């Protein structure tokens, strides 16, 4: 380029830059809000609704969908409890019962627990980090649609009476072609494929968001603990999901095209499934539990009126739990006859994972001790969490021991254990955090009285439902039996469990009623109703589509407590196009200006194409070939390079 041309080009660019509209002293207040609203709002109409890439809309859909699956899975649990209320009950037959517990477990693990955590994170993390959008917003939309289609497929199959009946961990060879003819097992395996793709996509979105979009000044050591928890969880998803992806693909290929990965008669191995599945399946439990510990840290901080005690210890506990979780899978296989001395390693590892959790619990209790706790509904759930979860953690220590596990494995003791861990450890904090973030999401407060009644009924109902199961297990009741004989002493614990299950169901219903009532009649929420310290409370309730007028600047771990008056902000981002600020990974200094993708239908279309591929491949291997064509077209259109009219700009001008 000749110097004259270069000069001309630079002048043209300078002219162009002058025309760019940015936030700043000249553009603020109502005018800025109107401009941002125009830039960020999604296209109108139903197609716009499908095309949205707004993390708040996607997060809301994730949460609502996951809660619907919670209700469906819970309804199945009630049916099972009715069948088990009496010995030799003839209410539900053997096959149907097997479908019920398979659907219950698969729904709760894959369609409720993991997605709801992802959904809450997708909604709140960008707000908590002080940015306008998640990273890869279209991938985020794709993730939601894949999850939705996987869930619809599973429940569609249930409605068509072809629901899987092989248990949520689908051991081979029971799930293989010989012992599960028909399509039930394939539907289960493809549902796994859907949720794998969806969870991996969500994990990538979360990692990118947490590492690159934090507000300037929010160094890693000032990042809210919930973001730390989600960072660890997203990394775990990225490492764990490929294992189950491999396992379920091999299962499908065994069933569909006659490979013999799990067929012991053709030099396959039935136990291979268990190794691959539990290498994913055990981390899965922590993928559900660690976000909940993040919720607890959030609630404890706000309601004890001080940051969580020993922040570095909590962060290290999260990371070490995430790593240790990958070294425990064999404790699901103590009865399979692997070398006995080798088991000792997994006993030791399983007990070790109790240490970081114990330290976290100490840190929360120390925060309460040092702070001045207020016992509103979210905090009650934290207390309920500690009382309940610790029982589950300790029964986990008991079954980490090989000799004890050999008796307790696959009994109702285990059923009690994992419900204490998953309901006590994850659902209680989830209900607490939904109450806590409800005003942020909807703009209205949840009713406190109904919330308190709801907490006490679910807390007591839960103990009534699940504590007797420990005894049922010790009295010899295996899990996954559709009936049991009279005279073994199992009548009373089972009857109590059934009554308790209905109390739990009633209180979940009460939570929903409270949510719906509060949505229309609840008190209007101010921006920061709980007087909390993190950035999501720095914007209105509910937040505008662009989240913040200006990107805030963070100078401490508890910005809203430490900044008297207005938060400091950075300005100069474009507001005539969707643009956000990327910061460096560790120190969170401004790094890049990032154009945020427009709403697009292509993620939805790609999800439909991929969904058709997955579902059709249950029936024919050719579907993978021909189904790949529309999927490839959709992906190509999605990633088609845009004409970049503008030049990259330096971050600091």
């Amino acid at each position, binding site marked *: 380029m000749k110097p004259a041309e270069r000069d001309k080009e630079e002048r043209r660019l300078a002219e162009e830059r002058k025309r760019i509209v940015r936030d700043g002293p000249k553009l603020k207040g109502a005018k800025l809000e109107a401009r941002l609203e125009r830039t960020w709002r999604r296209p109108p109409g139903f197609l716009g609704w499908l095309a949205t890439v707004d993390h708040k809309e996607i997060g809301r859909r994730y949460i609502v969908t996951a809660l619907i699956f919670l209700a469906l899975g819970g309804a199945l649990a009630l049916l099972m409890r009715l069948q088990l209320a009496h010995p030799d009950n003839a209410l539900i*037959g053997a*096959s149907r019962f*097997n479908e019920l517990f398979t659907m219950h477990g698969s729904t709760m693990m894959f369609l409720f627990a993991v997605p709801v955590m992802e959904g809450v994170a997708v909604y709140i993390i960008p707000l908590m980090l002080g940015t306008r959008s998640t990273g890869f917003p279209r991938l985020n939309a794709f993730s939601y649609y894949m999850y939705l289609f996987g869930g619809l497929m599973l429940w569609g199959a249930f409605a068509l009476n072809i629901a899987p*009946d092989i248990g949520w961990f689908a051991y081979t*060879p*029971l799930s293989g072609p010989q*012992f599960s003819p028909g399509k039930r097992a394939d539907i289960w395996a493809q549902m796994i494929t859907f949720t794998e793709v969806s969870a991996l996509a969500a994990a990538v979105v979360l990692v990118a968001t947490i590492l690159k979009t934090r507000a300037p000044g929010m160094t890693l050591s000032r990042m809210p603990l919930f973001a730390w928890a989600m960072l660890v969880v997203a990394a775990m998803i990225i490492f764990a999901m490929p294992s189950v992806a491999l396992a379920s693909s091999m299962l499908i290929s065994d069933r569909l095209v006659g490979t013999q990965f799990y067929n*012991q*008669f053709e030099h396959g191995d*039935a136990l291979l499934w268990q190794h691959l599945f539990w290498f994913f399946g055990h981390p899965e439990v922590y993928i559900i539990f660690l976000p909940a510990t993040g919720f607890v840290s959030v609630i404890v901080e706000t309601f*004890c*009126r*001080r940051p969580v*005690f*020993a922040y570095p210890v909590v962060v290290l506990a999260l990371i070490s739990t995430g790593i240790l979780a990958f070294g425990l899978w064999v404790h699901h296989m103590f*009865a*399979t*006859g692997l070398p*006995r001395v080798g*088991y*000792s390693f997994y*006993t030791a590892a399983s*007990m*070790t994972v*109790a*240490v970081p959790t*114990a*330290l976290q619990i100490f840190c929360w*209790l*120390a925060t*309460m*001790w*040092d*702070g*001045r*706790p207020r016992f509103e509904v979210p905090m009650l759930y934290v*207390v309920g969490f*500690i*009382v309940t979860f*610790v029982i589950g953690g*300790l029964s986990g*220590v*008991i079954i980490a021991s*090989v*000799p004890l*596990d*050999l*008796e307790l494995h*696959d009994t109702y003791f285990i059923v009690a254990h994992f419900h204490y861990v998953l309901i006590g450890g994850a659902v209680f904090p989830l209900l607490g955090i939904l109450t806590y973030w409800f005003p942020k999401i909807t703009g209205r407060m949840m009713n406190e009285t109904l919330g308190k009644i709801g907490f006490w009924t679910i807390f007591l109902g839960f103990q009534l439902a699940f504590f007797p199961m420990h005894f049922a297990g010790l009295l*010899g009741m*295996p899990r*996954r*039996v*559709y*009936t049991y004989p*009279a*005279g073994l002493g199992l009548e009373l614990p089972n009857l109590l469990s059934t009554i308790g299950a209905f109390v739990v169901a009633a209180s979940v219903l009460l939570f929903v009623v409270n949510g719906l009532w509060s949505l229309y009649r609840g008190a209007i929420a101010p921006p920061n109703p709980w007087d909390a310290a993190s950035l999501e409370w720095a914007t209105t309730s509910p937040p505008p589509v662009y989240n913040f007028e200006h990107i805030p600047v963070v100078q*401490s771990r*508890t910005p809203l*407590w430490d900044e008297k008056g207005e938060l400091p902000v950075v300005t100069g981002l474009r507001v005539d196009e969707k643009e956000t600020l990327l910061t460096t990974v560790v120190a969170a200094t401004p790094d890049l200006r990032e154009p945020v993708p427009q709403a697009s239908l292509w993620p939805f279309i790609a999800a439909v194409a991929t969904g058709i591929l997955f579902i059709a491949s249950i029936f024919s291997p050719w579907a993978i070939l021909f189904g790949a064509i529309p999927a490839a077209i959709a992906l190509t259109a999605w990633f088609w390079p845009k004409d970049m009219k503008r030049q990259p700009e330096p971050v600091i001008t």
Partner: protein
Amino acid sequence: MIGSLQTYQSIFSSAADEVRQFNTLLVIFLVVCAIMYTLVIAFLIAGILRRRRADAHVVENGMHHRQNPLMRTGLIAWGSLVGVGLIALAIASFVADRSLASTSAHERLSITVTANQWWWDIQYNSADVSKTLHTANELHLPVGVPVRITLHSNDVIHSFWVPSLAGKQDLIPGRENDITLVPRKVGIYRGQCAEFCGTQHAHMALVVNVEPYADFIRWWQHQLQPAVAPQTPLALAGYIVVTTGQCAMCHSIAGTPASATVGPDLTHLASRRSLAAGTLPMGKGQLYGWVADPQSVKPGSKMPTIPLEPNQLHAVVAYLETLK
């Protein structure tokens, strides 16, 4: 029969050395866990009830970034306590595990159990082939004699579990597992498949009769006998239906042409305590029900419902009742 055996599927009846060890270990674990739980709950209650000082480390005082040095000491102490407790439990568990594994050295009775979708095939092994015994769904064990049970599966993964006698071991197709135990108390114990194995997982039970050595030998001798020849015309008619009809396509009855191995051996069916792998107690009425329509007694069972004329049904039941 079932009602009279209150705790016979419970781990608390501890009728073998293995389960006594289990109970001791469980008590150790429960004590340690109870102490830990009490500490957590005490700290929680103290944190809730504590009288708040005006200079608490909270945001209202602007002191929220302060940390209580006492809590730092507490954190270290708590971490150490948890560590020590877990190490102690891990050692206790390891020692118990080693001592359980060491009993396997000197077994005196060898049994092979092969699991099938929804019943147990049992073989008593003996160096003398004529003394090798084939039966199903009911184990007899001599009290005080160490026994090794070799575990196989013909189809899917099952798990062998008699809570009062030992922990469980899986039966995995293509693999061989074993379990060793020393029964110490005469009695009848119930076991049950513990790994989900398909439709009738719930009805895959096993009766274990632990008896004095002399009784056991007598039982073995009796079981080695072929089935008695039918003595009445009705039983004879049943014999003909069973051995020439569809029954013989799956079952075997020693001393008769019926010699298939798809279903349980019936040679001494009527001497067992239960029917259809613990689905029903043994009795005339139950035999009628089971033979007439297994699919409504145990839906999904591999035994099809075979249409029988009433007189055929009477005959078959009369014959089966003679198989003592």
